[in-house]
C-alpha cells in the first residue's frame, strides 16, 4: 500500500464528557419525562387520540382473518401506548446499536482501512445492547398485563374450542410460542452482546500491546459474527416486529427491518463523528472519511427504498387479502390516519436523502451530512412507528407519549454511548490500518 507521506505521529486522545454535555443528556431525559407525563394526562382526558376510529379498526380486523369472536380489550389507552412505545423505541435503538458492531465487522472482513478513524464510534454505538436486552424482556413482560403488544400471547388462542381460538395463529404455534420466543430473543441479543464484547476486548488489547495478532483475531470473530447476525437479524425482525401483525407475513420483512436499522446506524455514526469533530476531537477525520460515510448513507437510503418498494409492489400487485391488509391499514385504513405518515416516511427516508446527498460536495460538508443524518434517524424511527402502531393501537395512535419515551431513550442512549467513548482513546492508535485511514482520499 502506498504511503503518501511518512507516518504522522498519532497520539491517543480521550473524550472528556463535560458537565455541560451531561447536563444536556439529563435535560433530554427530563424533557422526555415531561412530554410523557403531558401525553399521559392528555390521553386520560381523551384528547389527541381517535376513539371514533373503533369501527374502522373492527372492520380491518375482520378483514385480517377469521377471528373466533371474543373481541379482545386491551389496557387503558395511555398504558397501552406506553407499553407499545417502550417496545417500539427499544427495537429501534437496540437495532441501531447493533449496527455499530455489524459495521465494524464488515470493515474487518473487507480489510477496509478507511474507517479506522471512526471505529471507536462504532464500538461505542453498541453500548446499548445490554440495556436493550433488559428492556426487551421487561416490555415483553408488560405485554402480559393485557396482551396489548402481541395478540398471539392471548391465553387460549392456540387451543381448539377456546373462546380465543384463532386457527391461523394456532398454525404458527410451533415457532410462535412464549418459551421459544423468549429463548430466541435472549439468544439473538446474547450473541450480539458476546461478539460485541469480544471485538471490543480485542480492540482494547490492541491499543495496549500493538501488533497484528489482534487484528487477525478480530477478522475471525467478525466473520463468525456476520454469519450469526445475518440469520439472527432477520429472525429478530420476524419476532420483534412482524409477529405484531400476527396474521400477516412477508418474506421481505427481515431485509426491510435490517435496511432500516442499517441506514439509521450509519447515520448515527456519521452524526456522532461530526459532533465529535465540531467539539474539537478526531483531528484525523477529514472530509474524505465523511464523504465515504455520506456515500453509505446515500446508497443505503436507496437500498431501504428498494426493499420497501419490493415488498410493497408485490403485495399491491398480487392483491391477496391476507397480505394486502397490511397496506390497507396503512394506506387509508382507520379513516386515513396513517396515510400522511406513510407518504412522509417515503419522502424523508428516500426523496430527501436522495436529492440532497446526490452531489459530491453535499457528502463532504458537515452541515449537509448533519441535516440528512438527523432526518434519516427521525425518518426511520417513524418507519418503525408505522410498523408497530397500526397493528397494535389500530386507530388510537398518538405521538406525544411516543415522543416522550423516545427522548428518554435518546438521553439514556447518549449517556451510555459517551461513557463508552470516553473509556478508550478515540483513535485506535495501534490499528494496523490506521496509517491508511489517515491518508485516505476519495
Amino acid at each position: 500500500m502506498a504511503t503518501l507521506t511518512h507516518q504522522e505521529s498519532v497520539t491517543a486522545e480521550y473524550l472528556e464528557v463535560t458537565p455541560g454535555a451531561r447536563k444536556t443528556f439529563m435535560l433530554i431525559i427530563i424533557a422526555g419525562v415531561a412530554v410523557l407525563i403531558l401525553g399521559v394526562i392528555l390521553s386520560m382526558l381523551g384528547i389527541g387520540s381517535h376513539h371514533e376510529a373503533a369501527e374502522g379498526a373492527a372492520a380491518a380486523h375482520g378483514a385480517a382473518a377469521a377471528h373466533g369472536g371474543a373481541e379482545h380489550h386491551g389496557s387503558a389507552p395511555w398504558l397501552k401506548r406506553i407499553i407499545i412505545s417502550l417496545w417500539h423505541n427499544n427495537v429501534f435503538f437496540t437495532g441501531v446499536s447493533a449496527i455499530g458492531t455489524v459495521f465494524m465487522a464488515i470493515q474487518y472482513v473487507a480489510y477496509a482501512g478507511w474507517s479506522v478513524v471512526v471505529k471507536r464510534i462504532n464500538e461505542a454505538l453498541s453500548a446499548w445492547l445490554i440495556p436493550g436486552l433488559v428492556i426487551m424482556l421487561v416490555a415483553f413482560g408488560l405485554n402480559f398485563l393485557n396482551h396489548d403488544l402481541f395478540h398471539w400471547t392471548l391465553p387460549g388462542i392456540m387451543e381448539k374450542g377456546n373462546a380465543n381460538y384463532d386457527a391461523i395463529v394456532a398454525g404458527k404455534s410451533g415457532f410462535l410460542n412464549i418459551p421459544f420466543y423468549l429463548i430466541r430473543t435472549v439468544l439473538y441479543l446474547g450473541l450480539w452482546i458476546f461478539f460485541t464484547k469480544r471485538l471490543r476486548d480485542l480492540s482494547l488489547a490492541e491499543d495496549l500491546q500493538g501488533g497484528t495478532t489482534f487484528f487477525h483475531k478480530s477478522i475471525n470473530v467478525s466473520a463468525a459474527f456476520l454469519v450469526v447476525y445475518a440469520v439472527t437479524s432477520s429472525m429478530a425482525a420476524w419476532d420483534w416486529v412482524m409477529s405484531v401483525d400476527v396474521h400477516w407475513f412477508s418474506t421481505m420483512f427481515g431485509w426491510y427491518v435490517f435496511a432500516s436499522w442499517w441506514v439509521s446506524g450509519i447515520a448515527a455514526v456519521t452524526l456522532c463523528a461530526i459532533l465529535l469533530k465540531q467539539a474539537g476531537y478526531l483531528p484525523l477525520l477529514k472530509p474524505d472519511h465523511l464523504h465515504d460515510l455520506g456515500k453509505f448513507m446515500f446508497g443505503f437510503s436507496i437500498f431501504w427504498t428498494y426493499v420497501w418498494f419490493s415488498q410493497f409492489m408485490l403485495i399491491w400487485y398480487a392483491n391477496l387479502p391476507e397480505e394486502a391488509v397490511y397496506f390497507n391499514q396503512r394506506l387509508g385504513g382507520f379513516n386515513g390516519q396513517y396515510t400522511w405518515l406513510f407518504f412522509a416516511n417515503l419522502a424523508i427516508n428516500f426523496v430527501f436523502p436522495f436529492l440532497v446527498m446526490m452531489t459530491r460536495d453535499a457528502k463532504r460538508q458537515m452541515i449537509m451530512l448533519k441535516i440528512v443524518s438527523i432526518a434519516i434517524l427521525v425518518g426511520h424511527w417513524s418507519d418503525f412507528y408505522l410498523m408497530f402502531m397500526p397493528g397494535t393501537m389500530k386507530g388510537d395512535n398518538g405521538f406525544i407519549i411516543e415522543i416522550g419515551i423516545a427522548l428518554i431513550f435518546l438521553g439514556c442512549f447518549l449517556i451510555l454511548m459517551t461513557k463508552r467513548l470516553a473509556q478508550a482513546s478515540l483513535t485506535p492508535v495501534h490499528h494496523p490500518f490506521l496509517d491508511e485511514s489517515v491518508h485516505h482520499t476519495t
Partner: protein
Amino acid sequence: MTKRFALGIFDDEDVLLHAVENVREAGVKIYEVFTPFPIHGIDDAMGIERSRLPIAAFFFGLTGLAFALWLQIYTLGFDWPMIIGGKPHIALPAFIPVAFELTVLFCCHGMVITFYAISKLYPRWKTPVLDVRSTDDKFVMAIEVNENTDMNKLTQILRENGASEVNQKEMSKF
C-alpha cells in the same frame, strides 16, 4: 500536427507524486502523466479540475426517467388502454421498475458515450503511447517542449525530483 515532449521516467509512484508537485511549483506545465495504475491524489497534485460528468449523468438519468414514464403512461394509458390485473390503466407502482431500469440504462450509456466523446476515444483511433513502459512498471511524466525550451534546465529539474531517465520524443497524433 507534430508535438515534441520531454519524458521524465520514474520508478516509484510516491516519487512521481512529489515530483509532480515540485515540477509544477518550478513553473513547468505538465502535459500529462502516464501510469500503469491509478494513483490516489495525483489529480489534486496535477491540479486537474473535477470532471463535470456527474452533471451529465444526472440529466441522462432524468431523460431516461421521463422517457420511461411517458412510454408507459402514453401506451398503456392513452394509446392502447388495457386492464391488467384489475389495476387502473395508469398504475404508477407497476411503472416504477421500468422507470428505474430506463433511468439506469440512459444514465450508463449516456455517461459512457459522453466520456468517449470528451476523451476523443472513437473507433479506429490509435492511442498514442509515449513510452510503452508506462503500461508495465514505469511512471512517465510528459512535458510539452518547443525550440525555446531550456532542455538542460528541464532535465535538471526532472532529475532532481527523482526521474531515473529523461528522454525526448516526437508525436504526430496529438
